[in-house]
């Protein structure tokens, strides 16, 4: 029965995506493309588990693989979808999810202007790199700057179900673009382990707004962007306060990010910097009745990174990055409230499809390690190192 279903599904897909059957531009399912990538990373870290079980041992836990399909459904209506498999945490295990699946249609299009909409599960395109953060061939380095593109809650903030309006105007090879995305976030229950002390359950996306404006060229001269992103969630929590346990089935929180990005590209070098002001707000009405505590709590953190890349040749690149995050508090920062990461590395591309990378991190702080994979205490060393090696292939 399963085989029959699989055969039927395969037949339908084969019919839908067969170019030879639909040769006319006005016909259905034109310009179909399949793309895929896979990467395997080896990590060794000195004192903590960093994106794998790598504390004082060589870990091969971290892997990622993606399969993408894209097609012009009819005339200008296109459909794109990507399934992503990855593992970054022992407790979350091997994760397989539909990263995005959306229709896109240009409502108005001239030689230089386009205005359109997207509908479905869409990537939250904050900053310069969130949309393509998982594909080794489109990013700099094995690990994205954790200050901004955090892996600890990647899925929760990554894509959302909704509608996006987008528009752009081209000025020669420079593009001015704007987009606004109204959605319901896709919550990842595994990632609630980052606040395990609250015993969170039943995490649900509530509503989200993302607005972004950008200008420039991706490979010659400046490009800049500003992103505002505010996803809101509902969650049930239960945690001890003194001798009693507070249970709140009406708790909520939101994350508000404002990201300013600037990149300068030349033929053989690039410099990128992004600055994030991050506000995090929780609302637990049940705490309103507890003496000395308040229902609403707000926290802030500031993050930035600056990164330089040099291209020695078509095969060889080298990069160096300083990545920083600090919480805003009126006292000395705790180790888990800061993250200062100096890292450098190199990549080699023996062919169009293969990519090999190696990089080293020297880190102060614990703000971006996965709480669900680490038990930390104030007695532990906040200075630690990580070395990693990655091999990737794309089709």
């Amino acid at each position, binding site marked *: 029965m399963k085989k029959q279903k699989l055969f039927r599904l395969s037949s339908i897909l084969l019919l839908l995506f067969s170019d030879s059957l639909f040769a006319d*531009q006005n016909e259905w399912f034109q*310009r179909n*493309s399949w*793309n895929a*990538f896979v990467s395997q990373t080896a990590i060794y870290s000195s004192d903590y588990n960093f994106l794998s079980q790598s504390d004082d041992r060589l870990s091969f836990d971290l892997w990622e693989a*993606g399969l*993408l399909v*894209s097609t012009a459904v009819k005339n200008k209506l296109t459909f*794109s*979808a*990507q399934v992503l498999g990855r593992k970054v945490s022992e407790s979350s295990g091997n994760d397989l999810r539909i990263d*995005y699946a*959306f229709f*896109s249609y240009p409502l108005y*299009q*001239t*030689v*230089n202007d386009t205005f359109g909409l997207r509908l479905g599960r869409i*990537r939250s*395109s904050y900053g310069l790199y969130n*949309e*393509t953060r*998982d*594909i080794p*061939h*489109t990013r700099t380095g094995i690990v994205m700057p954790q200050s901004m593109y955090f892996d600890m809650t990647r899925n929760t903030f990554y894509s959302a179900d909704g509608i996006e309006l987008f528009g752009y105007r*081209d000025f*020669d*090879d420079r*593009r001015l673009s704007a987009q606004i995305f109204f959605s319901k976030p896709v919550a990842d229950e595994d990632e609630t382990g980052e606040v395990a002390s609250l015993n969170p359950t039943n995490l649900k996306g509530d509503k989200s707004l993302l607005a972004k404006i950008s200008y420039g*060229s*991706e*490979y*010659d001269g400046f490009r800049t962007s500003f992103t505002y992103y505010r996803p809101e969630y509902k969650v049930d929590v239960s945690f001890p306060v003194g001798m009693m346990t507070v249970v709140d089935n009406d708790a909520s929180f939101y994350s508000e990010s404002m990201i300013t990005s600037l990149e300068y*590209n030349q*033929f*053989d070098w690039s410099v990128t910097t992004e600055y994030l002001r991050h506000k995090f707000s929780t609302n637990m009405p049940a705490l309103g009745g507890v003496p000395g505590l308040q229902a609403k709590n707000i926290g802030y953190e500031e993050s930035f990174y600056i990164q330089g890349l040099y*291209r020695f040749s*078509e095969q060889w690149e080298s990069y160096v990055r300083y990545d920083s995050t600090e919480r805003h508090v009126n006292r000395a920062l705790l180790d888990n409230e800061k993250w200062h990461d100096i890292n450098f590395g190199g990549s080699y*591309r023996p*062919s*169009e499809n293969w990519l090999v990378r190696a990089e080293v991190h020297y880190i102060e702080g614990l703000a971006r390690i996965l709480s669900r994979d680490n038990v930390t205490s104030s007695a532990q060393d906040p200075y630690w190192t990580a070395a990693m090696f990655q091999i990737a292939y*794309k089709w």
Partner: protein
Amino acid sequence: MTKLKRAFLITVFVLSSLLSMTALSASLKVIVNASVEENHLKLKDLRSIYTMKKNLWSNGDRIAVFVLSDDNATHKEFCRKLLKVFPRQLESVWYRLVYSGTGEKPVSVNSEKEMIELVTNTPGAIGYIQSESLHEETKVISIK
């Protein structure tokens, strides 16, 4: 005298290398399908087309972009000398579009012969070659 001779020989070698590179660039041709009305393009427009941003000709027809494979010498020449970009950088731009689901990459062909055939037979097509053997229906456009 020996030093002068060596300096002269090095200068001649460098100049001849530069001249031969210029000659190689000069033989690179951007070709389009006969349906394309444009007779010349600004370099910025060509860059915009090959980064898959500009996707319509001035008459509203869709631009079909063809490229030679990544390791082809003509492709490397086209990227480095004409577009002033490493092939890998251009590829990164395409893959950012593809993997975000917001755009397409060009159609890759294996040889200049195939490039000529496809550009000749695809309305709105654009490509590039170095060979002299052009099909009579293929149009060469100048880049300013």
